């Protein structure tokens, strides 16, 4: 077999992750499994491998949401909203950089509207904003996007539920064991502690790790502000070799 070298990973701390069944987030009630998860004491190649996107060809503007939805002519405008850089490092739990991994983001526009056929919010679409980006981390685990700060928006949960401004972030890591989708929030947003989705996390320190910090040193003067958001994937443990067959 070609793939005979696998890392194992630090086990996932499911008390730190959100509760699957969280009644204040109403949709979770009918979608959270009721049986306990089956724990794999001996993960196999199926769990310890995963797709490597290091050589997956991306487009030149895939990580630049300010430019990647303009319809083509030089006269086209830029999206409305606060221009920001969102950047950070992907590291594992031992602070080792996760290089060459796929990081994908999606978000609402500055008015809180998604470019999605099912988003019925009355805020307008921005003709110059798609709201989707992707990039591959560099050798030190760094990623970088340019975008606008998304707006908060109402959603049907309680009568008057509002999501804090957020960007959805997806990271693959070295195997399907490290696969992770999360949300990035912004420092200082008063809606964060009121959000039933944020509050699926029990530990305030877990919430704090999802709050991007203003990174003024990385701002571009007279151009855009910057926010720093580091991502930690499961730590790789010892390597073992399975018998080749």
């Amino acid at each position: 077999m070609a793939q005979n070298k696998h890392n194992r990973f630090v086990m996932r701390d499911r008390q730190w992750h959100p509760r699957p069944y969280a009644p204040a987030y109403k949709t979770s009630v009918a979608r959270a499994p009721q049986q306990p998860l089956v724990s794999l004491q001996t993960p196999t190649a199926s769990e310890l491998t995963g797709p490597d996107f290091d050589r997956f060809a991306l487009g030149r503007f895939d990580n630049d949401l300010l430019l990647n939805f303009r319809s083509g002519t030089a006269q086209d405008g830029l999206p409305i909203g606060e221009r920001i850089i969102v950047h950070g490092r992907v590291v594992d739990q031992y602070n080792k950089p996760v290089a060459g991994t796929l990081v994908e983001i999606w978000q609402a526009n500055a008015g809180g509207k998604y470019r999605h056929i099912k988003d019925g919010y009355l805020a307008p679409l921005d003709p110059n904003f798609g709201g989707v980006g992707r990039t591959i981390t560099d050798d030190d685990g760094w990623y970088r996007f340019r975008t606008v700060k998304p707006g908060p928006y109402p959603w049907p949960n309680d009568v008057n539920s509002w999501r804090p401004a957020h960007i959805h972030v997806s990271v693959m890591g070295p195997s399907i064991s490290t696969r992770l989708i999360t949300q990035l929030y912004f420092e200082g947003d008063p809606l964060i502690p009121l959000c039933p989705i944020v509050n699926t996390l029990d530990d305030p320190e877990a919430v704090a790790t999802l709050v991007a910090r203003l990174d003024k040193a990385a701002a571009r003067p007279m151009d855009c502000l910057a926010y720093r958001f580091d991502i930690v994937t499961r730590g790789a443990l010892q390597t073992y070799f399975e018998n080749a067959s």
Partner: protein
Amino acid sequence: MTRPTHDEGLSYPETPSQTAGPFVHIGLALDVAGLPPRASEIGPEIAAADATGEAIEIHGRVIDGNGDPVEDIFVEAWQADAHGVYQTDYRAEHAFRGFGRSAPSATDDGWWTFYTVKPGRVAHPGGQPMAPHINLMLFARGINIHLHTRLYFDDEHQANAGCPFFNALPPSRRDTLIARRDTQADTPRYRFEIHLQGPQETVFFDF
């Protein structure tokens, strides 16, 4: 900011999960959101028509605790090639990619599809071969941390019976991982219903 903890040596906590939400498609399945494709997309074609192996389709649906199909589900699949090897170097130009993404469109009543080849047998760490299977990951609104499961095939009786992984599962629940060959379809096609809750609740894994 992230701080180190002292379990497992000096380590940082993993970034916690949050739901992928109802609009996951604009980021990861652009066609379903109504967005134009970029130069390359990761789609439901795990294997192209010219890949080695038996071409099959997986036709699946996820059912919630009320018995309703989860129409905003987003599914990822990871599988070995026809020789039982995980091909980790993902490239759009490869005939066999090993990884795919699928989500139902508005008119699909919750059904999603993968186009692939039947995977070969991968060795269990103990040395015995596992039965052919596809690893699936489920993301959606209301799912706060994604769910891992496996799909096995109903026409692989012998392989399933000898699979050390499959047979370690509680006997009453093994059947929840079996996809059924659809004998009405023109192309070899398997149907797989995943139940998030209830008496037929699918086995989900922690690893």
